[in-house]
């Protein structure tokens, strides 16, 4: 395991360098925006990575809350399965298809909905018990980093192209800002909380945040239809060469994100080990004073 990390790091660095080469030289120049548009190869993959990480955090938080009692654990598994099945079928019903926003294909929505139960069961299997919470804090932190990059590169891109740094009606950037705010408040809660059940409180907050995001999206969407605004980042279809480069860039950043998460995960595990060791030490000290037998391991 220990030797795998450096090897993967070198491979990821090479991959990132290749993605950069693709973004700078291979991808064609945009007819309208010139070379500035190449910011997209960092801006969009960072956004997709951040959303994926926050999605994982949401799934881990729900599972953590549900695993408090066996009854809720089973109930949650059933609910998630039903959501997946019903959601996929619903996407192909005409009544539901009319509700799907323009630009999104039903198959794309169906795939996203299907990911909910898939992620739920895979994450539950890979990260049992307390590791769910470690996963939650890891994905939240790394997600905030990638989200920050989206919010920084977005305005840097908008300025030369549209002449403005920010458009309040820009639905994507504003929704991303709210998502960033929610997860920063999540991290602040984790740091400031002195409860033994910090993890539960944070998980509850994550669920609230996840419920909030679609509402944010719709509120800005309606606002935008009343007050037309420039769409930063462009819309519509993409040149296949550009799409190809975009996907390469995304894959490279996903590998990078994976390694960063792995490091953060190990850091958190180490932190908790040491805390436990401290706790054991104080217990041993107290027990020695009272000369009580002390079991070696609590697990």
């Amino acid at each position, binding site marked *: 395991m220990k030797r795998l990390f450096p090897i993967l790091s070198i491979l990821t660095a090479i991959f990132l360098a290749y993605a950069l080469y693709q973004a700078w030289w291979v991808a064609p120049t945009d007819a309208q925006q010139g070379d*500035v548009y190449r910011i997209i190869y960092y801006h969009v993959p960072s956004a997709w990575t951040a959303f994926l990480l926050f999605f994982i955090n949401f799934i881990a938080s729900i599972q953590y809350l549900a695993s408090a009692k066996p009854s809720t654990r089973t109930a949650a598994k059933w609910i998630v399965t039903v959501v997946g099945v019903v959601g996929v079928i619903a996407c192909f019903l005409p009544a539901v298809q009319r509700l799907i926003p323009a630009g999104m294909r039903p198959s794309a929505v169906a795939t996203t909905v299907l990911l909910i139960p898939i992620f739920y069961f895979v994450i539950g299997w890979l990260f049992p018990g307390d590791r769910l919470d470690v996963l939650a804090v890891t994905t939240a932190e790394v997600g905030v*980093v990638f989200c920050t990059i989206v919010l*920084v*590169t977005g305005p*840097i891109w908008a*300025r*030369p192209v549209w002449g403005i740094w920010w458009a309040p009606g820009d639905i994507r950037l504003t929704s991303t800002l709210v998502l960033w705010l929610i997860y920063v408040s999540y991290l602040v809660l984790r740091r400031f909380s002195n409860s033994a059940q910090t993890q539960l409180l944070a998980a509850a907050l994550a669920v609230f945040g996840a419920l909030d995001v679609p509402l944010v999206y719709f509120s800005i969407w309606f606002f935008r239809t009343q007050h037309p605004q420039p769409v930063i980042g462009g819309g519509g279809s993409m040149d296949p060469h550009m799409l190809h480069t975009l996907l390469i860039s995304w894959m490279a950043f996903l590998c990078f994100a994976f390694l960063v998460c792995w*490091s953060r995960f190990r*850091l958190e595990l180490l932190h908790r080990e*040491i805390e436990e060791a401290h706790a054991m030490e104080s217990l041993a000290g107290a027990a020695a004073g009272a000369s009580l037998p002390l079991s070696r391991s609590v697990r």
Partner: protein
Amino acid sequence: MNAVKFLIAAYVATWVIHGVYLGSLVRRFRRLRREEREVGKGK
């Protein structure tokens, strides 16, 4: 030509942010390893 400055700024900003975060991870790792050794000695 001016527009390319923004492109470079965006790419640099991205890696600065990643660098700062990775730096903080390294710093935290070092601190924890030090604590781990102290706890080990205490036992």
